[in-house]
């Protein structure tokens, strides 16, 4: 590998990671799916956002883990499920939340990609942790998917759980150990 391509590689690598530490506006107010106004980033508690769509099979297979995380850190984090496909109908949203047992989880239809842009999320199911207006973690939930079409039989790394635990105990936040596999969030037209 030439020196130049190495430099390019390093720069692109830095660019990919530079969204961690990104600042988000804590005063941002949006409506959740029930029409209630919420401030996703304003609370003293850290926010954990999971980006999804109703029809991404990789994200859907992760739902049991998403529910597990929402339940096990209940009260200690501000947990939000963010639907990113602007074409999602009200009916698709309601059916998905009911079928997958997600009615208890605060959900947002981010049709204008306010949260996608604020956090830099690119993939479903990607997780972002924000505390005091700062992005502390962005990446995969765990290593269930090694690659496209290659789910693991046994999950051996729980990247998001480890990161949340670190944030809650004020420790250095470990970054994802591998690529986030899933569906790409399409850019708005």
């Amino acid at each position, binding site marked *: 590998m030439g020196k130049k391509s190495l430099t390019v590689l390093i720069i692109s690598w830095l660019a990919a990671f530079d969204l961690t530490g990104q600042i988000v506006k804590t005063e941002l107010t949006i409506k959740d799916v029930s029409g209630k106004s919420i401030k996703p980033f304003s609370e003293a508690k850290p926010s954990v956002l999971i980006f999804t769509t109703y029809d*991404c099979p990789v994200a*859907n*297979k992760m739902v049991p*883990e998403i529910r597990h995380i929402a339940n096990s850190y209940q009260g200690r984090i501000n947990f939000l499920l963010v639907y990113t496909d602007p074409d999602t109908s009200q009916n698709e949203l309601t059916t998905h939340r009911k079928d*997958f047992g997600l009615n208890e989880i605060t959900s947002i239809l981010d049709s204008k990609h306010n949260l996608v842009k604020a956090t830099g999320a690119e993939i479903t199911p990607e997780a972002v942790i924000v505390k005091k207006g700062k992005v502390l973690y962005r990446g995969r939930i765990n290593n269930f998917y090694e690659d496209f*079409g*290659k789910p*693991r039989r*046994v999950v051996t790394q729980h990247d998001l759980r480890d990161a949340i635990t670190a944030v809650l105990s004020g420790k250095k936040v470990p970054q994802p150990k591998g690529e986030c596999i899933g569906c*790409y969030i399409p850019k708005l037209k």
Partner: protein
Amino acid sequence: MYRMLYPKIEMKKILIVLVFTVLHIEAKEVTFTEHVAPIIFQNCTSCHRPGESGPFKLMNYNDVSKRGKLIARVTEDRVMPPWHAQKGSIKFHGDRSLSDTQITTINKWVETGMPEGDPSKLPNLPKFVTGWQLGEPDLVVKMAEPFPVPAAGRDIYRSFVVPLNLPKDKWLKAIEFRPDARTVVHHCLFSYDTTGEARRLDKREKSPGFRRMRRQGTGIGQLGGWAAGGQPNKLPEDLAWRLPSNADLVLAMHYHPSGKPEKDQSSIGLYFTDQPPKTAFTGLQLPPVFGALSGIYIPAGEKAYTVRDSFTLPIDVEAFAVSAHAHYLGKKLSMNATLPNGKQLNLLNIPDWDFSWQEQYHFEEFINLPKGTKLESTVVWDNSSSNPNNPSVPPKPVRWGPESEDEMGSLTLLCRPGKGESFSTLTSLYRKHISETGVRTARQRAGRIRENNIDDRLNAFFKRTDRNGNGKIELDEAPNWMKASFARSDTNRDKTLDFGELKAATERLRNRNR
């Protein structure tokens, strides 16, 4: 000299072709309507449309451009369309894999911003058949009751018996499977049972279905299978399975939890013919009995455990399909034929085996394999921790067995005798091959045991019995003959046997027998 030159010329040729392909694509804009839609509509939309297995539809510009980046990636990785046989000289019926040029076109389109192009150039969607792909079946049967599949957890393997109540023996041309809960049904293998075993097993268990058929052999027969994305095939020409009037259909299903609880009650269509076939056909399985006689023992951590088998054809045959079977740890499966004139034919090569996509590969045309052709199969397993499919973390030694966490491995060539050839010569010689495989393995095993000293044997037994790998044998891990003396051997009373305790017990036994 010739050998040295040959690859160079080939490379040059390839380069020229590549340059021209690239120039050709560079020359004009790649658009959806003109270039990408034909690829997607022909190869993806049959599953990616409402009512079929694909998780979302790919039927117009909006559907495809929204997922453009994903499509580019999964086609480049050859994860989609699902097709695991490598392209070779033999053409398969219903080959869904894309060509390199098609993949390049999709990539180029995504890289250049996914332009839609001239709407007048958009091809029509192919006329997809809704419902039964092979037409209205002669008999439609359904699982007796819905089977619940939970939202999460490990994959589920479950068998179901479906009585057919045929008025008389029938000639069966094809089975078409219509999955009910499409997101969770991954594959289904069909067999028939005239022994009543399936009904007995079904009655014994409370929840719908039963774990699996135990018996094989007389009265039980395999009838192919279905995997998500696969198209049903009729047996070629006049070939047909004989289905006895007292046969029950047995479905061995593989379910994948999808994230939401589901209930599955799939349907099966059967297609009969009144015309009896002129010849019978058979499956030549190498190694035989899914590898049961090949002494499969895959050490923990072993990256490429390999079993080979070969069989020389005693008559001319005409082959029409090939299939492969292994469990999670399977990595590479291939079958080659060396014809008497030295010509090599690669009948099937699966370089990256995926347990989830069981499929029978039908050749586009019958392949003539003359008497004296040597069939060779190779099965490679990867029992290292770097195999994401490994169900054990850390890896454990694995033996042959019917459970999905045991291993099996073999390739099966379906063929009929050539014109004027004797079917029984083929089948009796193949049966001889089965028994010889068993005898050879038994001899090798006996030889190994004589060579090893007693400690090695005890060690091996301990490792094998300690299924959870915690360095102790729990009561439920102990074989029945050991359970009776378990408490006596457990000298430190911790309800487990460590290696020292096992060794002491063995010594005691040996002294007593002296």
